[in-house]
């Protein structure tokens, strides 16, 4: 090779890399991770979500299209105003390209609105509301791990079909609880069951015995707990104490791995629920989870941690495939490529932004079935994604329906 051809080759190389970098805004891809770092949702997402994103970036090689990938994080304290202030700062002065994390649906709602205005993608890996892919959908939303519909469908449908027809709801008295109850009620009625009663317990109720007594005298087959976190734990504890668990089934409509782990197996053993991911499902999930646990001091991942990794990874792959970090092009690639990894089975990102993947119906193991403290669930059923999630045509997402 003579000198001239060497120079030509070198300049061609430089030109090609700078061309690739030119397609990455500000010369880097910056991922913002928002989360409740010290409050009630800190364990199901929090620092674990930041670590999961970092892990995806590390596994991806730290660079995409030759540009570095940077991760920053912030504590939204479950406050929508704080979340949107941080997001605005990230977008306007810190060149953040994509936001992941954020558990409280109210915070996520504020963020997605802002991100859509700025034509940037939100990876909704932690929030439960299905509004983000139905009536408040956006071409820049990608909702990953789960939603209230999948949780209710996965748990309620098989139980009604097996003959548990009469249901009683203990519902958290705010938007989230109401949504969960209404979604589950639809599933119960569609499968020939009936709702014989419901109580709306204020958020943060300490003593659920009144409600459990009412449920007991209602003659229901199943008590559905349409609440979360400590409310769920307290209502379940009370049900066991009053001997209800021997007479009726309890269905937890929103139970995370961390909640199940915190429950006494003598009380919670046998309870059925739905999750999007279980660390001990197969070789693939165990391999990833062990690496995660090594980074997190031994704490097992929730479905949200795994989903956060999966969505980040899929985003980075889409940036690479699209050859740019321009949001519309990336989103088109995300929706085009199948989502198949340790977390997502038979997964794909639907037009409305819903990542449809198989869900797991699990049962909390009793004490004598457990190997150790991390051995929590027995998987009973795999629910195909199309049965778990609300179908596209029933969601009412305008832009996705008009594309049909």
């Amino acid at each position, binding site marked *: 090779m003579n000198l001239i051809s060497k120079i030509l080759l070198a300049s061609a190389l430089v030109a090609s890399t700078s061309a690739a970098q030119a397609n990455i805004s500000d010369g880097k891809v910056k991922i913002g991770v928002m989360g409740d770092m*010290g*409050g*009630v*949702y*800190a*364990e199901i997402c929090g620092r674990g979500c930041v670590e999961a994103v970092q892990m995806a970036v590390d596994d991806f090689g730290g660079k995409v299209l030759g540009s570095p990938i940077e991760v920053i994080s912030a504590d939204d304290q479950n406050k929508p105003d704080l979340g949107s202030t941080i997001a605005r700062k990230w977008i306007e002065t810190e060149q953040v390209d994509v936001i992941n994390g954020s558990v409280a649906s109210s915070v996520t709602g504020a963020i997605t609105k802002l991100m859509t205005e700025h034509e940037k993608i939100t990876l909704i890996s932690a929030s439960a509301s299905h509004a983000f892919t139905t009536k408040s959908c956006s071409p820049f939303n990608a909702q990953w791990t789960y939603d209230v519909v999948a949780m209710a469908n996965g748990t309620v449908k098989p139980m009604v079909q097996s003959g548990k027809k009469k249901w009683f709801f203990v519902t958290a*008295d705010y938007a989230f609880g109401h949504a969960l109850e209404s979604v589950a009620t639809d599933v119960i009625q569609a499968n020939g069951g009936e709702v014989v009663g419901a*109580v*709306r*317990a*204020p958020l*943060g*109720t*300490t*003593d659920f*015995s*009144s*409600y459990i*007594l*009412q449920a*007991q*005298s209602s003659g229901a087959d199943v008590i559905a707990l349409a609440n979360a*976190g*400590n409310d769920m*734990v*307290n209502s379940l*504890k*009370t049900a066991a*104490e*009053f*001997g209800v668990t021997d007479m009726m089934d309890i269905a937890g409509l929103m139970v995370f791995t*961390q*909640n199940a*782990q*915190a*429950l*006494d197996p*003598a*009380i919670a053993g046998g309870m059925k629920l739905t999750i999007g991911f279980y660390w001990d499902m197969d070789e693939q999930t165990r391999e990833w989870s062990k690496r995660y646990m090594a980074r997190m001091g031994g704490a097992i991942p929730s479905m949200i941690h795994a989903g956060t990794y999966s969505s980040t990874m899929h985003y980075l792959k889409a940036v690479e495939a699209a050859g740019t970090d321009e949001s519309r092009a990336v989103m088109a690639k995300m929706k085009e490529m199948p989502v198949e990894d340790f977390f997502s089975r038979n997964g794909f990102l639907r037009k409305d932004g819903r990542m449809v993947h198989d869900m797991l119906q699990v049962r909390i193991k009793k004490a004598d079935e457990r190997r150790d403290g991390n051995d929590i669930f027995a998987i009973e059923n795999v629910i195909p994604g199309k049965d778990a999630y609300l179908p596209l045509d029933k969601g009412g997402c305008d832009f996705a329906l008009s594309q049909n």
Partner: protein
Amino acid sequence: MATLFDINLFALSGQLLIGLINGSFYALLALGLAIIFGLLKIINFSHGALYMLGAFSAWIGLEYLQLNYWWALVLVPLGIGVFGILLERTLIRPIAHEDHLYSLLLTFGIALILQGLFTHWFGSSGLPYAIPEELQGGTRLPFMYLPNYRAWIIMFSLVVCAGTWYLIEKTKLGAYLRAGTENPQLMQAFGINVPLIVTLTYGFGAGLAGLAGVLAAPIYSVAPEMGSNILIVVFAIVVIGGMGSIGGAILTGLAMGVVEGLTKYFYPEASNTVIFLVMVLVLLTKPAGLFGKEA
């Protein structure tokens, strides 16, 4: 089935009993608050955190030291009492002569720090604590199934409340205590060590909160924010009963448990507001509270 105006009487008696049980919890917590306020004039916002500390101590005892529930019932209140004494000596004492607001802010700060530390150490999901074997199971009453543990709570806390009331209102020690806060200089002149009495009283109030925490551990989620949830309600109860009235705190605690229980039956949505509604009504008609002395 016996019904009256479309109300199921059996169900209603169940709700009344449940209300009484919750009320005995409120009474125990309100008692500690009322003692500390009545005798020391400290608005103790860390009371909820001390209650949370009691529940966590019971859990830690069981998990790491193999101390069962019964040991916890004896040792934890003592431990929390000592912790309270340390708090009083090191932090509260130096600002005791300042306006009430200072001690309120200080104890509120202490509560936030404790809650934050426990969230950091143990997470926010709550920890499991089993009902002791001796108290598992329950009794089938004509109108409801009464778990043995709940029956134990109501009996035990009523004994503690009554004992405390007797100690403060009817014994010589109680008389010293009341006199020492009424007129400390005079009591000092009689050779009574007033600062010591003040410290011990704070320790005793803290111990009561710790005791309530141990009682709560088997039935409620042992979680860092358990104290802040209940504290506001208990404050309302102390206000309704009359700030500083010992007997008033106990009776109001029980009564408000019942009021809340009935609300949970008839209109659950209002169950966490009803006590504050009562508070507003009481303050409008009787500003010193139901059992308080008019200034």
